[in-house]
């Protein structure tokens, strides 16, 4: 460490032992994903702003589904939230150095994500309107479409984490990719709650009626 220098009082940073590269979730990658989430979160905020702005200024009858059916949407929402827990379970097992448990968690999250996407396609097909029918229809399909794009990216991320875990890349110390990817998946799931609330719940609360 810094020895005393005779003529000048030098302040050389007093460093102890420092981690080399990302350790745990401590690394620049986590900050990068946080930035990504901030930007994408803003994107969804503007999409939902567009919905509320258009809806608030629209004449009665704007909602094409005044009482949106929850038959597919509610179970699908629960499935997506459950997939977040599965992903968390996978990350937790990386910390415990249990690779099989980790693979189980990431694999289950992946399957649930794919299932969500498939059910969402059926949900779209069940609608009596198409994206060009009216501004409501455009907002519904484009907002859920943007979310679907994020789900697809998330599915690819989960697949990558699964593969890398299978290749035995990670340890409790070197696992930033896992934590960053799982954080992104949590974001995809949380933002869906806002989309779901907007399109499926607020009509029951009287918005746009």
């Amino acid at each position, binding site marked *: 460490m810094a020895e005393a220098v005779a003529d000048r009082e030098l302040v050389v940073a007093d460093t102890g032992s420092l981690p080399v*590269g990302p350790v745990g979730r401590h690394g620049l990658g986590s900050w990068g994903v946080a930035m990504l989430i901030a930007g994408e979160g803003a994107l969804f905020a503007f999409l939902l702003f567009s919905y509320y702005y258009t809806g608030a200024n629209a004449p009665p009858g704007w909602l094409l589904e005044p009482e949106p059916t929850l038959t597919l949407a509610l179970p699908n929402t629960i499935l997506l939230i459950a997939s977040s827990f599965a992903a968390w379970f996978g990350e937790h097992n990386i910390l415990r150095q249990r690779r099989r448990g980790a693979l189980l968690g990431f694999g289950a999250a992946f399957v649930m994500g794919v299932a969500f996407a498939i059910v969402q396609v059926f949900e779209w097909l069940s609608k009596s309107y198409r994206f060009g029918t009216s501004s409501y229809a*455009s907002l519904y399909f484009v907002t859920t479409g943007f979310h679907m794009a994020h789900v697809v990216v998330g599915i690819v991320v989960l697949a990558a984490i699964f593969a890398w875990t299978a290749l035995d890349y990670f340890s409790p110390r070197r696992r930033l990719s896992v934590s960053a990817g799982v954080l992104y998946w949590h974001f995809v799931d949380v933002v869906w709650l806002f989309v779901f609330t907007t399109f499926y719940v607020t009509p029951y609360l009287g918005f746009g009626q």
Partner: protein
Amino acid sequence: MRTADFRTPEIGLDSTAHEARLKRLWETSPGIKGFFTTVDHKEIGKRYIVTAFAFLALGGIEALVMRLQLAGPDLTLLTPEQYNELFSMHGVSMIFLYASPILSGFSNYLWPLLLGSRDMAFPRLNALSYWIYLASGLFLYAGFFTGNGPNDGWFNYVPYALRDFNPGMNQDFYALGIVLLGISTTVGAANFIVTVFRTRAPGMSLNRLPIMVWGTLTASVANLLVIPSVSLAFFLLWLDRQFATQFFDPNAGGQPLLWQHLFWIFGHPWVYAIVLPAMGMVSDGLPVFCRRPLVGYSLVALSTVATMLLGFGVWVHHMFATGLPSLGLSFFSGASIAIVVPSAVAVFAWLATIWLGRPVITTAFLFFSSMILLFVIGGVSGFMTASVPVDWQLTDTYFVVAHIHYVLIGINVFPVLGATYFWFPKMTGRMLDERLGRWNFWLTFIGFNLAFLPMHLTGLFGMPRRVYTYAPDMGWDTLNLITTIGSFVLGLGILLFIVNVMKSLRTGERAGANPWGASTLEWATSSPPPPFNFAVIPTVASRHPLWEDQLGEESAKSSIDRGMLLASGKETIGTSPLDAAPDMILEMPEDSITPFLLALGTTILFVGMLLKTWGVVAAGGALATLALIAWLWPRQALREREPAHG
């Protein structure tokens, strides 16, 4: 072989052997390979600057052609359609392709040097940001040169931008080009934010940051949050045009005003994003020529942030004439007027710095100090239009055109030209010619004011903006002729600037490490800096590490020649967000082709969308996805994974 997960960085003095080792680790390979793979922030910064100046020149030529058309009444040099594309492309070039990227260029080049680091937090993201910026500029100009440029002004209101009224590809080029550019700006903003919070030299706590860093940080936070708004607006516009969605068409419940909201929620913070870093250049550069520290550092830093916070809540002042409820107008009018306060703080701080200092008159000083005057003029005309009744009188007249040019040329171009005179020696090792510089400054200054000061009157006399010609008996003839003459003088000034740069690159006087006797860290390393910036990581003990002996304010001294060596790999130090205490050793990525490939794939994807050729979209998407997977693949060299087992 496995290296330790934890290490205490070796502390030592700079030496030739040490520098040679660092150079091997950090230097970009020469030739075509290095060109496409470099992640050196200095190289990327210079590319940004050169590219942005090229767009400035193009936008300037467009403006001069328009000024010829407007030199007298009833001229027929341009058709109305040509005029529409020219004024739109002029705005797009200046605002999107010059004003923001030029600041990104300076910040990219300077930040790691100002912060005492060896590169940006995400060097590959930095390269990606540049390539996508270049691609979007080429994309937009490809439209313009094939007669498909934007033709509805830079803020592109619907319904004129919709397909019924605008059936060509003009708006599709514009919409997709801006979405593409948005990717570049967003990843750049994210990079700046993480860089400032995680890669400062030890000891450079937040209250020791140069003001330019505050400016770019503030702008970056704003960009990260509001670029999605404009990207979304343009994407929805493209969907409305090409896939018959109904976001903006009132016949199917759409909202034309939604466009204006989404655009200006982005647009007004963006105005601050393209001036705050430039104001930071003045706050950092001007005091060097006044031979004293900036007066009121903390107030200026806080007012930078305050300007942006208020700036999020003023967008409706662009929409005063759209018939919104008066309660809403009052709120936005009040917020717009309140912005005067933080702006005035900066002005008085600069004036006090000159007043209390011993000014050395250089070309850079002239550009920086004249900016104060132009800022006051542009600020006052902005303050006037913040008042709703005044705005109703002046909106869509040349008064607003005069205002925006005082703001954008006065607070962006003048500081940027000053910054070029100031930092050119650091970037190239040579000084810009001072004699040519004086001609450059006075022609630019006189030409600019000759062109735009009378334009306030043109507007007050009622001349509407964006009209390709005017009748002779309106009282606008002389004013327009003066503006045209002024604009050519201004153009001549800019031409001299380019001449000066070309000439000085070859024959300019050699600059030492610190030709201006400045105080911040970038002047502690050689001109131009070595690929690794600093042989040892400096430790900072004050706001002015190179002026400590003269100022004698701090008991502790910064350490420039002695510090962490960090030479066992391509490494720099990671520090804590507030106090900049070292908290990790960062393994920096090698040069890589993946940013270029990702940018290429993304561009192909956008070209496919433009042509609605789904095979091209799929090919571009596949290339982008593969590049991204390769990029993110956990690598042992970056300590992102454990070594292979077995």
